[in-house]
């Protein structure tokens, strides 16, 4: 299982390194979205709840791009067939895809969070706030990666893939947005670092756990052919 996951991860990394598509696309999309928010909201700077909202809507919509691309090469270039021929546990595909989705999100945020601070965030981020924000980001990214992998695998087999992906993923990810926006809003206020609301981290962790187990249980059925 571990070797299968490792091989799949190497394949994902090789693909993305040869023709970088997903990560540059998502990062560029995030920055364009900040510009759109700047004009849409007519604000030069945002803080507090509004900042958390802008940040999480941007991350969520950028994630949609990644989710929509996650299984496309496997379907079109025969990756699924090759994987099904290999005598390995099918759950390896889920684990590898969820890890790569998480990595995509984390790498995009390495660009998108500093861009957000520079372009839109009023209060700025201290080191301590940044650490706390990273904790929130990590928990939310796990949730997005898990649900995104499940939805991506569901949607890639449909004819209306581009339509189905966001229609399924957005409602499913509403609890993540609630938890992440609530948890990160105090970190982005003008009055300086508020305390990190622990109960929202618990909600995020619970969401990750429930959907992690659920996706782990049902993913096999999406691969049979």
């Amino acid at each position, binding site marked *: 299982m571990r070797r299968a996951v490792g091989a799949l991860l190497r394949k994902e990394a090789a693909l993305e390194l040869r023709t970088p598509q997903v990560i540059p696309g998502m990062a560029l999309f995030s920055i364009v979205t900040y510009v759109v928010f700047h004009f849409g909201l007519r604000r030069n700077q945002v803080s507090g709840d509004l900042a958390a909202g802008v940040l999480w809507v941007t991350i969520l919509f950028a994630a949609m791009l990644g989710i929509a691309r996650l299984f496309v090469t496997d379907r079109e270039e025969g990756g699924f067939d090759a994987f099904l021929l290999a005598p390995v546990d099918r759950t390896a595909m889920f684990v590898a895809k969820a890890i790569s989705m998480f990595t995509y999100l984390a790498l995009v945020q390495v660009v998108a969070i500093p861009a957000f601070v520079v372009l839109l965030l009023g209060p700025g981020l201290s080191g301590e706030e940044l650490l706390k924000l990273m904790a929130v980001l990590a928990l939310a990214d796990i949730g997005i990666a898990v649900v995104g992998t499940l939805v991506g695998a569901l949607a890639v087999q449909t004819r209306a893939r581009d339509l*189905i992906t966001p229609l399924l993923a957005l*409602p499913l990810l509403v609890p993540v947005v*609630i938890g992440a926006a609530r948890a990160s809003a105090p970190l982005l206020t003008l009055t300086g670092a508020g305390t990190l609301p622990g109960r929202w981290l618990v909600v995020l962790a619970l969401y990750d756990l429930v*959907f992690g187990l659920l996706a782990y249980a049902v993913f096999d059925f999406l691969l049979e052919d």
Partner: protein
Amino acid sequence: MVTYGKGLRPLAILTVLVLGGGIALALFYAPMDADQGFRQKIFYIHVPMAIVAMGGFIAGGIAGIMYLRTEDSKWDLRSYTWIHHALILALGALITGSIWAKTSWGHWWVWDEPTLVSFLIVFLLYCTYQPLRFSIEDREKQSRYAAVFAITAGAFVPLNFMAVRMAQSLSHPRVFATSNGGLPLKMQIAFYVMLAGMTLFFITLTKFEMASKNTRAQMGALRRRLGGEDGPARRSAAPALPTATEAGTA
């Protein structure tokens, strides 16, 4: 061959009686609410609708589990019809809730009411069930993917309610839990009769749809055997059923 139509007529009659009786009880027998007056009566429809819709969604998820375990298309059909009718009842619950919000608070939609908001999110999620089925051509794959969706969404329902409820102040009207300790007995009777009636209504409707789907599948099979005119296979979101002829050859 499975017969779905058995016992439909007595069930339908019973549904009409209980639902009609429940409405009569709610209108004439249950006392007028002291604070809210007549508009409180909408809750005798709204709450049972919402409860039955949620029950239908979760039952659809359980039927999804059963389908994945047994690969029996009967369970796929159950999952499909339960979710289908739960979605209709959920729309009804949203509309009645909205009407009540308008009469009571003066707004059609109130965001700081967790139950209404989580209901909307669940409703929007399940709206994708039909398009998802429709856009998968292979029938067997369609059933399997729909089951995975039903299970995921079924597990999402309670989690979503919890998250949204935490996010907002608790302001959903506890209409049936008044300050002086619970509901008057007469209201309780009317409410539970309405709940039973709505459940029967749901069961009757789903049984009718299953019977109709089954009959249509068998008609199609017979027609194919008679005339041989196959016609262009119509794509559909509804589950495919094993028909008598196909089961015979299999």
